[in-house]
């Protein structure tokens, strides 16, 4: 690996970066960058496809799964030069729970004993956090959850108290962390620059001197900028995917991963025909998901099997898959008593290309064949979010995060989760609930995974949604860029610690 | 028949978005006259002296700031809506500009017919007949009633304008410069027409003009206006033979001679007509008056009778 050089990366999602204080941020766009400025107890490992320890050197988990004892690395420095200690961890988690307006990280800290009391203003400090010594922290939970899946999100990063307090509001725009890169400057709405932090706890890393994040919401512009070699790496959209695949240079360098998002059409059970399982299954049989993926998404997705995505540890490659089968679909419709079909008046969706109303359009001719007519209502995200929570739809098309923790992902459809809490389809199946509850109290990883696989199978059989696909995230990079990784939680969450560029890069010596 | 008493019309001058009134245009500033049945009254004066405004206020197209207009003894301001509408049948107006005074999107038959239908004077076949009759009266053919105004020449349009004024069988017609916009050769046709119609229908006219020759020819009595006031009023004979007000004299002398042999001694007035926004103190004519005296600057001359039916507002008399 070669040290030095600059990489021009991209922040592609929904406009400007809002905040580089991850406690005060909720957006993917922000995290792409924050990730490289800040660190948490855990971090995502693309190789292992799960979170691994980061700031902590080691962890001991009590047999009941409720007490975690972390040992921090001894050589962690904040960008201001100060040593990071257990006090910072405790302070940071307390901050997350007591921020006003509420912090998006709160839900990841909430399992810790006493966190909820702090959130509700009933206590000053979280009871479950105990400082053993400067580098040893004991964390007590209310329930045995797999903490690594919580404390790896950058929203739970550890911040230096004195800087946060000194900078006040401006900390969001001028942050200090303990990650591999230091904040340099931010041209609002256009680009963000971070540079190498020399005292990073990993020796000799990062390799890069500088990372420039360009904020580019338009995919066509990204494509052109990349081709103009003004970007070292870019996320590839479906439209351009075949072109990149065919490209003699870029085609070989494409990084592809099944991201932990499940695109689906949800059926509102209060709409009479959808109460019938056979109708739901018929729809699953009637729409050629594979073909739509191939044609409309240009192959840039993995057709779905169940709810849990390929990169989920609980993905079952042998699980049931609804293959395109018109005959069977017709048969099921007939059995359900809807031989004549029906009209779905409110098919809500956004303008998104891969999981928006365009998919309805593609599905329409096929559904027509089993007598189902769709009436599309396109709207923007905010309006749609409200409609989903209120259940004011008959079908919705959406993409929801289905990882990395399979238990948490499936829990969305637990009957005790309200419609407003993300169970938009108001799914209610006691069998499914039971499997989930059991898994929650099983600490043996393998047994737990098996239970979750079963739960997913139940879900698939019930077909409360049309399983469409898991996103295939594709990262294209210039040939001189090395060590970018396949990040299944979100491809753009690229940890730049290990990334390097060789001297063919036009920016190989840019500081 | 028609009596105008101390008529004043002031226009506010507004400025800015807040429409603050910053001043007043004294367009008409105390005008008195009387019109007898069958008589023709002329009003002359230079541009902007308030002739049109007087005319408009007289037939209630403008609300006077103060003063009264009495028609057959009744104050117009006291009339209600219906009575005002009925008044339309008594008094009408002919405009100066034959081009803008006819609605270009209506055929002549409608221009003449609509008012009659509106006032219930005639309908159906009778209406058509009456339109034809009017057309003939003003020297046009009934066939031409199907045409649009732009298909007529200026003189013909003015005839239509006159016909329209006649639709409601009025007793008084106010002519606001009815011939000024016309060619010399056409002007005579209209002047003759006006005289003919007066004889036939017993009309009374108020003729507004700036052409002294036309006014003298048409009118029995003539009022000379200057800056919103009547400065002299007399019959047509006196106007030419013994004009009293220096302004009238200058005006008369300024009329180009009718023949190269007629030598004229011109009284050339200095300067321009002052603005009616700030009329000069005293006699408003004094800054241009060749015969001004000290008193003229300070005291506004009252209108005085200086002979039978000859009134003048000047300190000389």
């Amino acid at each position: 690996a070669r040290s030095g050089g600059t990489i021009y990366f991209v922040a592609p999602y929904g406009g400007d970066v809002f905040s580089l204080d991850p406690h005060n941020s909720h957006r993917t766009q922000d995290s792409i960058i924050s990730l490289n400025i800040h660190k948490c107890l855990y971090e995502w490992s693309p190789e292992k496809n799960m979170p691994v320890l980061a700031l902590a050197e080691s962890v001991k988990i009590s047999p009941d799964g409720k007490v975690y004892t972390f040992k921090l690395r001894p050589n962690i420095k904040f960008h201001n030069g100060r040593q990071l200690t257990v006090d910072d961890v405790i302070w940071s988690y307390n901050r997350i729970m007591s921020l006003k307006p509420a912090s998006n990280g709160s839900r990841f800290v909430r399992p810790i004993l006493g966190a909820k009391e702090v959130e509700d203003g009933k206590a000053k400090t979280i009871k479950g956090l105990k400082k053993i010594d400067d580098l040893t922290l004991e964390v007590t939970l209310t329930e045995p959850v797999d903490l690594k899946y919580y404390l790896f999100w950058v929203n739970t990063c550890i911040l230096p108290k004195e800087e946060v307090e000194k900078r006040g509001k401006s900390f969001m725009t001028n942050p200090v962390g303990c990650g591999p890169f230091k904040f340099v400057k931010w041209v609002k709405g256009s680009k963000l620059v971070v540079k190498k932090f020399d005292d990073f706890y990993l020796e000799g890393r990062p390799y890069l001197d500088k990372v420039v994040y360009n904020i580019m919401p338009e995919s066509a512009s990204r494509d052109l900028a990349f081709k103009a070699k003004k970007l070292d790496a870019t996320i590839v959209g479906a439209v351009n995917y075949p072109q990149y695949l065919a490209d003699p240079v870029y085609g070989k360098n494409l990084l592809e991963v099944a991201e932990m998002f499940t695109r689906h059409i949800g059926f509102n059970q209060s709409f009479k025909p959808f109460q019938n399982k056979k109708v739901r299954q018929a729809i699953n049989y009637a729409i050629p998901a594979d073909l739509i993926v191939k044609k409309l998404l240009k192959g840039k997705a993995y057709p779905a099997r169940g709810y849990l995505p390929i990169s989920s540890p609980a993905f079952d490659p042998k699980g049931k898959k609804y293959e395109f089968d018109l005959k069977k679909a017709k048969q099921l419709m007939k059995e359900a008593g809807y031989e004549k079909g029906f009209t779905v008046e409110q098919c809500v969706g956004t303008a998104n290309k891969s999981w928006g109303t365009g998919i309805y359009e593609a599905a329409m001719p096929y559904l027509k064949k089993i007598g189902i007519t769709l009436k599309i209502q396109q709207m923007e995200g905010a309006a749609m979010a409200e409609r989903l929570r209120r259940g004011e739809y008959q079908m919705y098309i959406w993409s929801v995060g289905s990882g990395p923790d399979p238990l948490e992902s499936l829990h969305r459809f637990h009957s005790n989760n309200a419609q407003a809490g993300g169970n938009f389809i108001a799914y209610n199946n006691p069998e499914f609930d039971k499997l989930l509850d059991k898994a929650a109290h099983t600490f043996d990883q393998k047994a737990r995974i098996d239970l979750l696989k079963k739960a997913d199978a139940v879900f698939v059989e019930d077909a409360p949604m049309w399983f469409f696909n898991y996103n295939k995230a594709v990262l294209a990079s210039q040939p001189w860029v090395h060590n970018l990784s396949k990040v299944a939680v979100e491809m753009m969450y690229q940890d730049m610690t290990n990334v390097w560029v060789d001297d063919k890069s036009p920016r190989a010596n840019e500081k | 028949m028609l009596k105008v008493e101390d008529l004043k019309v002031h226009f506010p001058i507004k400025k800015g978005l807040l429409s603050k009134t910053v001043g007043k245009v004294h367009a008409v500033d105390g005008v008195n006259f009387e019109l007898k049945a069958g008589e023709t009254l002329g009003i002359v004066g230079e541009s902007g002296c308030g002739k049109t405004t007087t005319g408009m206020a007289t037939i209630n197209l403008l609300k006077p700031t103060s003063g009264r207009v009495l028609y057959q003894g009744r104050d117009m301001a006291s009339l209600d809506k219906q009575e005002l509408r009925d008044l339309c049948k008594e008094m009408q107006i002919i405009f100066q500009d034959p081009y803008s005074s006819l609605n270009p999107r209506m055929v002549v038959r409608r221009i003449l017919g609509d008012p009659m239908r509106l006032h219930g004077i005639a309908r159906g076949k009778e209406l058509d007949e009456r339109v034809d009759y009017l057309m003939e009266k003003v020297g046009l053919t009934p066939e031409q009633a199907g045409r649009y105004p732009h298909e007529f020449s200026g003189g013909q349009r003015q005839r239509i304008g006159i016909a329209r004024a006649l639709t409601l069988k009025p007793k008084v017609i106010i002519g606001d410069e009815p011939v000024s916009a016309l060619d010399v050769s056409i002007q005579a046709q209209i002047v003759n027409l006006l005289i003919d119609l007066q004889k036939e229908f017993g009309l009374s006219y108020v003729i507004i003009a700036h052409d002294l020759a036309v006014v003298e020819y048409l009118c029995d009595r003539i009022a000379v206006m200057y800056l919103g006031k009547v400065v002299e009023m007399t019959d047509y004979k006196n106007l030419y033979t013994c004009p009293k007000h220096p302004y009238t004299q200058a005006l008369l002398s300024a009329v180009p001679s009718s023949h190269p042999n007629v030598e004229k001694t011109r009284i050339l007035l200095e300067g321009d007509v002052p603005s009616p926004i700030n009329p000069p103190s005293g006699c408003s004519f004094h800054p241009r008056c060749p015969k001004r005296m000290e008193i003229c600057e300070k005291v506004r001359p009252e209108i005085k009778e200086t002979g039978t039916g000859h009134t003048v507002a000047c300190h000389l008399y």
Partner: protein
Amino acid sequence: MLIAVFAPFLAPFHPVDDADLMVSDEPPSMEYLFGTDNQGRDVLSRVIYGARISLSVGLISQLFNTIIGVVLGLSAGFFGKWWDDLVMGLTNIMLSIPSLIFALAVMALMGPGLFNVFLALGLTNWSYTCRITRSQTLTARNQDYVKAATALGYSKIRIMFTQVLPNIAGPILVIATLGVAGAILLEASLSFLGLGVQPPTPSWGGMLSAAREQLFTAPWISIFPGVAIFITVLGLNLLGDGLRDILDPHTSTQRG
């Protein structure tokens, strides 16, 4: 216009039902003269059917605009006083709120739907018509024939509609034609932001923005609706200029 009316006879395929994913993103060929879009629908047919939507968006919303603008402008110009102040205040406000933003807000408020697009665009762009109508009314109001009508005892409303309106119709019509073009383009912008006409209904603006990412990979999908917009806007502009000439009293009097 004709194309829009006779769309079902002209279009070789149905714009929605004849989708065939197997032939998506085909370049122009003998079968699909303008190629197909990503859903495998015939672009030519969609352009033809799109004419219906785009033109009706243009026409109907402009009709709303014109009615609102004319009624407000005419009455403001004619009655004056506080009403005029009020209307002009409102007009200035509308004029300064960016039309796209306003349409966006209205669309977001009323939710999707073709009718709502009409309404959103129709509520947005009347201020210009209103201003012109008012200023024209102010001029026309002082014409001698309007005074003559007053002298003849016409009521105000009657004068407004029989004397003033026919004479100011020219400029209003011209603005209206140009406004149709504006509305078509505004719908395209709304589509760009995902709030235009509902899919799968084809509208030119929607097609254009839906295919913007494919501009370089499948240019035919966006070029043809683009060309259609261009021709329409050009046509409407020429129509506007033509109307101006025809309705201009100067030219028409000279003819007589």
